[in-house]
C-alpha cells in the first residue's frame, strides 16, 4: 500500500534529514512510526504526503508515485498534521465541506460521516463557529474528521494524539482500528509508546534519518517481558525522546 524506496532528504545539501529509507506498509495494517525528536519522522511524512520534495528515491502510494502521479497518489490518502495550522477564519463546517468536495464525497455520505464523527468527538455544535475560536484539541478533532470523510485507503497521521482529551484519544484509536478492519491502512507517528504498543501491527523506528528497526512488536522484543519503551530506549540510547 505504501512503499518508500531509498528515500533521502537533505535541506542544506550536507546533513541528511532522512537517509536512504526503505519501508513498506501493507494493506489493512496499522503502522507506528517512532523516533526521537528531530529523527526525521515529520520530514518522512511530509515527503510521503507531497509537502516536501524528495532528494533521492521514490515513494508509492497504492502503486502511484507521489512525484510522477501526485494527484492519483494523493487521492489514496488523507493527512492529519502534527500542528493544527489550518485556514482558521472559516467555520468548521466550511472546512469539512471543502475537504469533502476535494475528495468528491457525495452529499449523503458526507452528511452521515460529518454527523457521526463530529458528534463522537463532541464538536458537532461548534461546526458553525469560526475555527479560530477552537481549542488545539478541537482543531485536531476537526482535522481528523476531515481526514476520515473520504474513507481513504491510507490514513496518515503525524502525532495525532497530541492535544486530545482521553475520551477523544480513545475514540480516535477505535476509529483507526475500524478503518483497518474495513480494509484501510493507517500510518502514524507518535511519542506515546503505550499507544503504539497497543495499537500497531508493525513498528518502524527512525534515528538520525535512518530506519534502525522495522518489524512487529513480537519480533522486536528480544526478551518476552521487554516493553516497547525498553526496546526504544535501547535502540536510541544516546538520544532524548
Amino acid at each position, binding site marked *: 500500500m505504501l512503499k518508500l524506496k531509498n528515500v533521502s532528504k537533505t535541506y542544506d545539501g550536507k546533513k541528511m534529514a532522512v537517509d536512504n529509507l526503505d519501508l513498506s506498509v501493507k494493506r489493512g495494517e496499522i503502522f507506528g512510526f517512532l523516533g526521537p525528536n528531530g529523527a526525521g519522522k515529520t520530514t518522512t511524512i511530509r515527503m510521503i504526503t507531497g509537502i516536501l520534495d524528495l532528494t533521492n528515491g521514490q515513494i508509492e502510494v497504492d502503486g502511484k508515485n507521489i512525484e510522477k502521479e501526485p494527484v492519483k497518489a494523493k487521492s489514496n490518502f488523507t493527512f492529519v498534521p502534527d500542528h493544527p495550522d489550518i485556514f482558521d477564519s472559516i467555520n468548521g463546517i466550511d472546512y469539512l465541506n471543502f475537504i469533502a468536495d*476535494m475528495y468528491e464525497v457525495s452529499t449523503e455520505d458526507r452528511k452521515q460521516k460529518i454527523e457521526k464523527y463530529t458528534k463522537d468527538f463532541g464538536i458537532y455544535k461548534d461546526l458553525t463557529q*469560526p475555527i479560530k475560536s477552537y481549542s488545539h484539541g478541537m482543531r485536531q478533532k476537526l482535522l481528523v474528521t476531515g481526514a476520515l470523510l473520504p474513507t481513504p485507503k491510507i490514513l496518515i497521521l503525524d502525532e495525532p494524539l497530541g492535544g486530545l482529551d482521553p475520551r477523544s484519544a480513545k475514540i480516535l484509536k477505535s476509529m483507526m482500528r475500524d478503518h483497518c478492519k474495513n480494509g484501510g491502512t493507517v500510518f502514524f507517528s507518535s511519542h506515546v509508546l503505550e499507544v503504539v504498543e497497543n495499537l500497531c501491527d508493525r513498528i518502524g523506528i527512525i534515528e538520525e534519518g535512518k530506519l534502525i528497526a522495522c518489524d512487529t512488536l513480537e519480533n522486536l522484543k528480544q526478551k518476552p517481558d521487554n516493553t516497547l519503551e525498553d526496546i526504544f530506549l535501547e535502540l536510541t540510547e544516546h538520544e532524548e525522546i
Partner: protein
Amino acid sequence: MKKFKPLVIIQLKDFLGNAQSSLNIKNKKMIQLLQLLIIGSIVAPSIYFSSVTYNAFAQLNQPELVMTTMYLNSIILMFFLGIPIIISVFFFSKDIKFLSTLPVDEDKIILSKLSTVYIYLLAISGIFILPSIIVYGFYSGLSISLVIFGITTFILAPLLPLLISSLLILSINKIIRKSKYKNILLLLGNILLIIAIIGIQMGLTRYAGNPEQIQSALLNNEGLIGLIGIRFPPSIWMTKMLLGSLLDAFYFIGINILFVIFLQYMAKVFFKKALLTFVEGGAKTGSIYYKKRKKGWQLFKRHILIIIKEPTFLLNTLMSLVVPILIFIVMSFSGQFSPELLQSEQIRPFIILIFSLIVIFPAIVSNISSTAITREGKTFWETKVLPISAKLNIKYRIMTTIVINLTGSLILGIFSYFILPLTFEMILIAIFFTGATTLFLGTVDFIINILRPILNWTHPTAAVKNNMNVTISLGIRVVLGIVIYGLYILFPALFSNYYLVIITASVLFFIIYLISRYYVYNIMIERFKKISI
C-alpha cells in the same frame, strides 16, 4: 521600565526579523545593498524636492517653510500608512493573548506593540523630514540648536500621528467590539477615518490656498507659517523650535509627552474593554450544510475567503481597489476638483485615456497576485496534500486575484460612467485593455510569488505589505511606465491617436500575457511544486 524594555526589544526583534525574512534573500550583503538602493531611491528625490521647495520659499523670504511642508506631508503619510499597521498589530497579531498573561501592566503591552509601528514611521521621518532639515541647514547655515532640535524633530515626528491614530482606532473598536460584524465595522470605521483625515487635510489646504488668505498672510510676518501650519498646528511649534525658539520647543516636546501620558492612561481602559474583547472568539454564524460543489469552486471560494475573512488582507485589497473613488470624492467635497471639468471640450480628446487609466487602476495598484501564495502562510500545506493538480492549484489562485481586480475595475467603470462622457466605442476598448492588462499583470505577479513564496509570517501585514514581492511587483509597473513614457518622448507621433495607442497596448499586453501564462503553466509549475513550509 524593567519589564517595558524587554517587551519592546522582543517586539522589535520580531518586527525586524519578519522584515528581514520577508525580503527572502539569504545573502546579507545583498540585503544591505538592496536596503541602500531602496533608501537611496526614496531619499534622493526627497532631497531634490526639499531643495526645490526651499528655493520657492526662499523667494518669499521664509525658507524655513520647507521643513513645515515636509513635516506636514510626512504626518499625513504616517496617518495613511500607520492606521492599517496599527490595526494589524493590535487586533490581528497572534501574541496579544499571550502577552496578556504576562505580569506586565497593560499600558506597557500597548506601548510596546506600538514600538514596531514607531520604527516603521521613524523611517518615513528619516526619509522625508530629515532631508528637509539638512537642506535647510545646508543653505541657511547650521547651528547647534538646529542640529539638536532637528534630531528631536526626527525622533518625535512619528509620535503624534501614531498616538492619535491609536486613540482613534481603539475608540472605534471600543464602540463596535460587541457587534457580530465587528471585523467589517472595524475596517469600515478605519476607512472612514482615513477618508476623514484626507478630507480635513484637503479642506484646510483649500482654505489655505484661498487668494485672500494668502494675501493677508503675506502681509503678516508670521502669517504664512500659520496658514500652512493650520493643517496640523504642532508643525508651527516644530518650525519655530528649529529656528531656535525654546518656548516652541517646550510646546512641541510637551504635546508629544502629553499624548504619551494620555495614551498610557487610556491604555488601561482600552486593553480589557477593547482589545481583549475583540480578540475573543466570534459568535455563532451560519448553519450546518452538506452541499456538494465543484473542486474549482471550492478552491476559488477558499482563496476569496482568505482575503475576505482576514481583515488586514481585506482592508489592503479594498483600499487599493477603491482609492481612485475615495480621492475623487474627497477632492470633489474639498472643492479641489469639479466633475464639470471632465465634461469640458478641452478634456474630450483625453477621455479615452482617462477612462482607461481609471479602470486599470486596480490591476496596477492592487498587486494581490504577488502574495497569492504568501497569504496562505502556514496553511499552504492544506492544498498541497489534496488530490488536485498543481495546474489547478495555480489556476484558481490567479483566477481569484484577476476576478477581484476585474470587480474593482467594474466598480470604477460604473463610477466613471456617471462622471465621464463615455461612448460605446470607448467602453469596448477599455474592456479589452483592462482585460489584457489585468491578465498580464496578475500572471506576472504570480511568477514573483512562486519565486519568493514567504510562508512564515506571524502577522498578516507582513504577508501583504511589508513584503519585497509587493515592491518588485510595483517595480515592474514603474519599468512599464518608464518604457511607455520613453516611447512617448522618442516617438511622439505614435501617440497622436489615443484610441490606437490603447488598442495596440491591449494587443501587446495580451500577447505578453499568453507568453507569461505559458511560462507559468509549463516552467514555473515545477518551482511551485517544490514550495514547502
